[in-house]
């Protein structure tokens, strides 16, 4: 287990010169990014700019072609690092929820703590119920995912990602697959998480939300970070032509 020197200890995520190619197609062309403890970073940008790929590199769901990624003190690019260990510190929420359909809602949440021997079944069940209460779905513990609405599914997925008590949460367009009337309930849960001091990276199309919860907004285009800054600066006074261009289309 390789931990890094103390000067970087305050930042939960450090990305340096990250490059990622699919075959000959280079999707990330040298990304630098820092996320501090308790910071909420929103990533925006046009479709295909590499937002999801960046997020997936952070917990190594994608192999990293070059550069360095340090998450919660672990060097993800070091082949000797136990990636499963790292992932227990990083929760991830997907656009399409990816709940396990053959398990009940509670079992979805209990799977990781029980299988990874963090908690016994009774403790895990109590934890699941606590998390479900937190996302407002206490009564759904024994339901099957198929019987839930989209918004409820995504809230369960968030509870599941929190089951291992991660220090970092990653969201990849958590509300994009939802009917408009359900977006609010999910954003509400994310906002409460942000307010609780969780370190988060959110890829989102919800500009208003990014402005509201983000400590910092990162605008990506063509595989590079084009511009970043505080929400009011980036949305109110974008410096780059491409940022202005993008914002004029989406706002």
């Amino acid at each position, binding site marked *: 287990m390789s931990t890094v020197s103390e000067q970087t200890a305050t930042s939960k995520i450090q990305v340096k010169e990250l490059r990622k190619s699919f075959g000959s197609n280079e999707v990330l062309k040298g990304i630098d990014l820092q996320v501090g403890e308790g910071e909420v970073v929103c990533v925006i940008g046009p479709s295909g700019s590499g937002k999801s790929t960046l997020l997936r590199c952070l917990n190594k769901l994608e192999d990293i072609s070059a550069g360095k990624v340090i998450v919660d003190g672990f060097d993800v690019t070091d082949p000797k690092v136990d990636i*499963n260990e790292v*992932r227990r510190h990083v929760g*991830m929420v997907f656009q*399409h929820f990816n709940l396990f359909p*053959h398990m009940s809602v509670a079992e979805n949440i209990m799977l990781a703590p029980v299988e990874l021997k963090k908690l016994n079944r009774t403790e895990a069940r109590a934890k699941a119920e606590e998390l479900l209460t937190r996302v407002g779905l206490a009564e759904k513990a024994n339901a099957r995912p198929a019987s839930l609405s989209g918004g409820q599914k995504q809230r369960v997925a968030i509870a599941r*990602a929190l089951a291992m008590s991660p220090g970092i949460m990653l969201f990849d367009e958590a509300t994009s697959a939802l009917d408009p009337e359900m977006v609010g309930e999910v954003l509400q849960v994310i906002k409460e998480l942000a307010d609780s001091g969780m370190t988060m990276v959110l890829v989102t199309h919800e500009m208003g939300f990014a402005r509201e919860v983000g400590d910092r907004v990162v605008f990506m285009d063509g595989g590079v970070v084009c511009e970043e800054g505080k929400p009011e600066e980036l949305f109110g006074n974008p410096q780059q032509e491409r940022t202005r261009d993008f914002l004029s289309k989406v706002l």
Partner: protein
Amino acid sequence: MTRWIAAAAIGFMALVAGAPGALAQGNESVEGQTYVIGTDTTFAPFEFRQDGELTGIDMDLINTIAEEQGFNVEIRSLGFSAALQALSSNQVDGVIAGMSITDERKEIYDFSEPYFESGVQMAVDRDDETTKGYEDLEGETVVAKTGSEGETYAKSIADEYGFTVKSLDQSATMYESVKSGSAVAVIDDYPVLAYGIAQNNGLKTVTDKVPGGSYGFAVNKGENTALLAAFNDGLAELKASGEYDKILNEYLADPSAAVPSNFFDLVAKSLPALMTGLGNTLLVTAISFAVAMVLGLLFGFMKISGNIVVRGISTSFVNIFRGTPLLLWAFMFYFGLPQLTGWDVSIWVAGVLTLSLNAGAYIAEIVRGGIQSVDPGQLEASRSLGLGYGKSMQKVVVPQAFKMMTPSLINQLIIMLKDSSLLLAIGFAELLYQGQQIYAANFRVTETLLIVGVIYFIAIMALTKLANFADRRFNK
């Protein structure tokens, strides 16, 4: 007289060979002696198995004569050529196997007086009132057994009477052809035909017997003279006492006198053997399916591997066993493998290998398809929680894949149960094989097959119900 010369010759040879003890062979008395007698495996009505016991004309004759003459016999059911080989190498003392006495054989063996006069006869359907003799065969088809005396005779008169000879391999199929009307008559060896009719095969004879060969009991030339003499004496006494005719009538008498056994008698009589067969069918299917599941999972997972070599191995396995007939592998494992390796391959091993490798190839494809049909997001979600690849597969992907695979797997299990009948070709005693054994002895082909069919059907229905129940129970 000849006996004396033979005995003297043996005595002389024994002296020359410096083994005076062999003179004991010249002893006239057979009383209390035990002789090993070789015979064929199945040649109804001379020797065949009924309820597991070897029975038939030969067996009744040799046992009655032995009792009469006060000696004991130990029967070895070896097969015709093997029995003769055993006789030549003195592993058995005599052979009784429905064997014709020929000049060639007389060179090597000493024969008893003929104990049976064979010949050729023609039979037609019991209800056929128009075919009364060879002259009614004009333009018709007649069946005969390949390589039999009956075939030779039928061909010799075919032109004269203007009929066509169709040669078939099995007595049972010949009789079925006549009963179904695809042939009008059968010309066959008299004892076989008479036995079939005695077993109620639905035919009747319409011509006189054309005399053919005579059958004899054989010992090695110049040896066991006392045994041979005792056989001849015993035979003469049986003929005189009428016991001989009684034995023959038991197997060859016209059934018009006998009460024809009905379908339910047949069911009752054949059920024990068929149940043994069903047991073997179910057991070989169960074992093979378990092995096939292991193979299928292994090769199925190898098929989705990122490693091109591993994938290649799996693809080759699947292609080889999907691309070749099952029966070929049955022969290969049972006959080929022992010759190639020198191992003793049991019929169960050969059977299980055949069925499981074949089904394993199909199950590998089912497994691959099942796993690939699970949304990749499921594996990602599990991995993102920190579960390893193996755990994620086990807890998240495979359970969902299995749910999708279950109908195909049940289907594969049923195909396998039916395919197991092909193993009869290597002599595996499964259900259909037992059925064949039964109708080879009683010639009631259609009824026996009907019973076998019903048993298969019930077994498969029960299995399907069970599997669907398990599916609902575990995959809800």
